[in-house]
């Protein structure tokens, strides 16, 4: 053979760190997630509802000394802890975005595009998890932050800056407790099929099924452990644990606490272990499935 040119020059630049490479993956994933019409409508509805609530509360607070839901950390605690709208919203967004995350890569043969680059299987998992989590946080953390700011503006209580900072940490932690296990579980389901519809349906069945089964068991068996069956209860109990110290201070101020569904007489580490276990098993399942992808493209 005649090689006459030989002008090839290998690249000699610096390889960007792993976090940058994963970051590039996450940015594209989030753009893709926001491109969905249904996801846009759901998020827009949530924000309209949050801003509507803020408006009503603002008007109410101008006529009353104290509105119960604005007292202490009630407003964002209630937002993050309620099945409606937050539970349903996150369930639907996870079904839409988490469900199609890996399924679409399988469907469009995009997995090899990642693995033939400087992206390992672990990087891929972390990137997908970060993508789905970041997207779901726009339905939990961002509205909760808006409500936190609103509470500061509307409430007539004198709450120290330290308590407000603790609230901020608590609502951030609560949002993560809701989102991270759901995102990883949705990815595990997403790795099962090339059809994004299947994991979405499986996730909705898991979420609703756990609530229904927990309700039936609680009714029939009447034991405390029955509440642990509900996914929503587990996240809510963990969230409550994050607000615990702050709750005492609100009570000291004499404000009413809003009742949050799903509280249970178990220490925080019990639901933490269950949700942590689900997340870990889901992550291992995705990594195992990625070995199975080999022959699928």
């Amino acid at each position, binding site marked *: 053979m005649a090689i006459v040119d030989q002008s*090839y020059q290998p690249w000699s630049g610096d*390889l960007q760190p792993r976090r940058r490479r994963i970051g590039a993956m996450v940015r594209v994933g989030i753009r893709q997630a926001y491109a969905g019409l249904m996801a846009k409508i759901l998020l827009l509805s949530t924000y309209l509802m949050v801003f509507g609530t803020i408006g009503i509360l603002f008007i109410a607070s101008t006529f009353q000394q104290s509105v119960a839901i604005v007292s202490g950390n009630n407003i964002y605690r209630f937002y993050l802890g309620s099945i409606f709208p937050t539970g349903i919203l996150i369930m639907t967004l996870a079904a839409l975005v988490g469900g199609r995350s890996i399924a679409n890569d399988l469907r469009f043969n995009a997995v*090899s595009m990642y693995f*033939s*680059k400087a992206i*390992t299987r672990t990087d891929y998992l972390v990137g997908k998890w970060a993508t789905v989590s970041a997207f779901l946080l726009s339905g939990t953390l961002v509205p909760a932050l808006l409500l936190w700011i609103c509470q500061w503006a509307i409430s007539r209580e004198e709450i120290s800056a330290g308590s407000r900072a603790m609230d901020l940490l608590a609502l951030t932690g609560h949002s993560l407790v809701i989102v991270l296990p759901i995102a990883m579980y949705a990815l595990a389901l997403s790795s099962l099929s090339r059809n994004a519809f299947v994991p979405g349906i499986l996730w909705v069945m898991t979420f609703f099924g756990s609530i229904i089964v927990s309700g039936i068991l609680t009714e029939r068996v009447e034991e405390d452990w029955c509440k642990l069956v509900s996914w929503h209860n587990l996240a809510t109990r963990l969230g409550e644990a994050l607000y615990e110290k702050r709750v005492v201070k609100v009570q000291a101020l004499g404000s009413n606490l809003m009742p949050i569904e799903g509280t249970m007489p178990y220490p925080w580490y019990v639901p933490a272990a269950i949700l942590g276990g689900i997340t870990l098993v889901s992550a291992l399942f995705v990594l195992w499935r990625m070995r199975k992808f080999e022959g699928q493209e």
Partner: protein
Amino acid sequence: MSDAVIRADRLNKWYGSVIALNDVSLEIPPGITGLLGPNGAGKTTFMRIAIGLLRPSSGAVEVAGEDPWNNLAHNLRTGYCPEHDGFYEWMTGRAFVRWLLRLRGRSRAEARDGAHRALERVRLLDAADRAVGTYSRGMRQRLKIAQALAHDAKLLFLDEPLTGTDPLVRAELIDLIRSFEREGRSVLVSSHVLHEIEALTRSIVLFHRGRLVATGDIHEIRSLIDRHPHSVSVRSSRARELAAALVRDETVAEVSIPAERSLLVRTRRPDEFYGRLPQIALELGCEVEEVSSPDDNLEAVFRYLTER
């Protein structure tokens, strides 16, 4: 020690109970090498093992002296153009190549410049800012090649890069691939069409049903295939007129019309036929949308090679 860029030693790969590669040992030299075989022969599996996308069930493979599995340095030196499209259709061609360069660890500026150079190289700059979903088959093939070479890969793996392209695009892509060799890169290119590989290189590797059947000079294989009629499938909106013109041509042995807009031509002189087809289409003023070669004729050669 030889200067082989890829070396496989008793390589096996199973998908469950299906054997995709069966005891393959070979050495692939620098330059362009054609990986030839019918669909399902194990070409893609071999390529994916050499890229590091698959782990062999047993045996070993070395690419540039290294094990490709889970090897970041290897990924940075190699470029892969997969057979199937793996695009996010909503992205523009430019954004797609730039994004993949970011996944390869390039900075924002390097990714921007690298994407521009690669798209220019494959002559896709005019359509670079259009969504990939609007691209034709030929443009998609060019884009896949662009992303494979954008990071200055030393070794390129091109899986069926000419499939489904029209004669003009095919000629351009062949020129492009040959230019990689002139620059000093090595290219492993797969196809199930002997004629395509012949236009690229003389060095070929033949796979059949997961086994290595032959390696070496294409001319030896050529003499075998010329004993069998060569089938060429042609798609055109004026298939009947084209068939009438082709049947009068001396290079054509037989023409049939298996479906609307589709012709199946059998020829014993494929080289001449491939040269004549564009001329005849031009004279008629009819557009040829796609030219492909079914496996049948190649199967005959493989049968000969495996049964002799």
